[in-house]
């Protein structure tokens, strides 16, 4: 890879950094309890919670850091944080 003049870059390469490897705790999303409010997606600092075709939500575990904000803020307590087994 040759250097870009002036230390510049076009979008995309941050995705090379798979921050999912940082996790200690992993969220599990219970669609049975989910009311599709979307707060988990709104409040995720990574932007890695995605809506599916049915309107439910799931994290992208490639990038999810396991911070737990989604679990804390879910009004239906539909998200649980569990210690991840590695």
């Amino acid at each position: 890879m040759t250097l870009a003049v002036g230390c510049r870059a076009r979008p995309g390469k941050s995705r090379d950094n798979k921050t999912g490897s940082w996790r200690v705790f992993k969220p599990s999303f219970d669609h049975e309890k989910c009311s599709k409010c979307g707060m988990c997606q709104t409040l995720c600092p990574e932007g890695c919670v995605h809506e599916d075709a049915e309107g439910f939500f799931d994290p992208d575990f490639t990038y999810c850091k396991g911070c737990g904000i989604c679990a804390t803020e879910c009004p239906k307590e539909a998200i649980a944080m569990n210690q991840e087994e590695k």
Partner: protein
Amino acid sequence: MAEKKKTCELFDCGHRACGGCGAALTARLVMQAAGTETIVVNSTGCMEVFSTPYPETAWKVPWIHSLFENASAVASGIEASLKKQGRKEKIVIMAGDGATFDIGMICISGAFERGHDFAYICYDNEAYMNTGIQRSGATPYDASTTTSPAGTCSFGNRRPKKDMPAILAAHGAPYIATASIAYPADLKQKVEKAINTPGPCYVQVHAPCCTGWGFEGDQTIAIAKLAIETGLWVNFEMVDGKVTKVKKVVRKPVEEYLKTQKRFRHLFKPKRQDAEIALIQAIADRNAGKYGLDINLRKE
């Protein structure tokens, strides 16, 4: 699992912010409000560092970082250039409280005085976080930082938060707002207003920092809410220098906010510091009086 819907995030995954980072969430929400026709000018600080370690960039809009103090001046030059080129992109400055309240004051004052068209978003995590939690002009009274540490002879930071909104109102900024990641829809609305109001506009976003304030990353939003509910952070709007909208609250005692964070632990351990807590309560009470925060619940 059903098919994922496409979302367009202009602040991408893979950035290196701490898990639960209030500033990262701020960046995401601001970019959702701003859209693709935006040029971001970022000061040195947490946001710039966790989003652009060469060659990885999390930004999907044109973005520039120059120095710590000069984002407003760089933005002034960009604005002039866009004018000459007949281009319509909007300029959004993203800077931390250190860059805004302290080192950037000269450049901000000049840019606001000249009346350039941009939206200045300050993500306020109330200290110099990227360098390891040092006191800034935005650090609240009695907060412990590494340069205003609590100790046997000290209760931490001795000065109240600098009132940046008032300073910029004095510069004639047409639109000023304070916001919080606890109320994301409100935050986005305010950012949009700031971007679409001609002239230099300012939004100060409360962005709690789990690493710097000493709380677990999953509490970021809850703590941001408590700041507002205790009256220590006020969400308001100013149009042409006059406060127009305030988020009213049923106020909780400041203690409920202070006890959640290690930076205020010295107010409770080893000994409860009632006099200091009372002084902080007085700050909240003054805010309530100044902005009309209190919802009066009347028992019929």
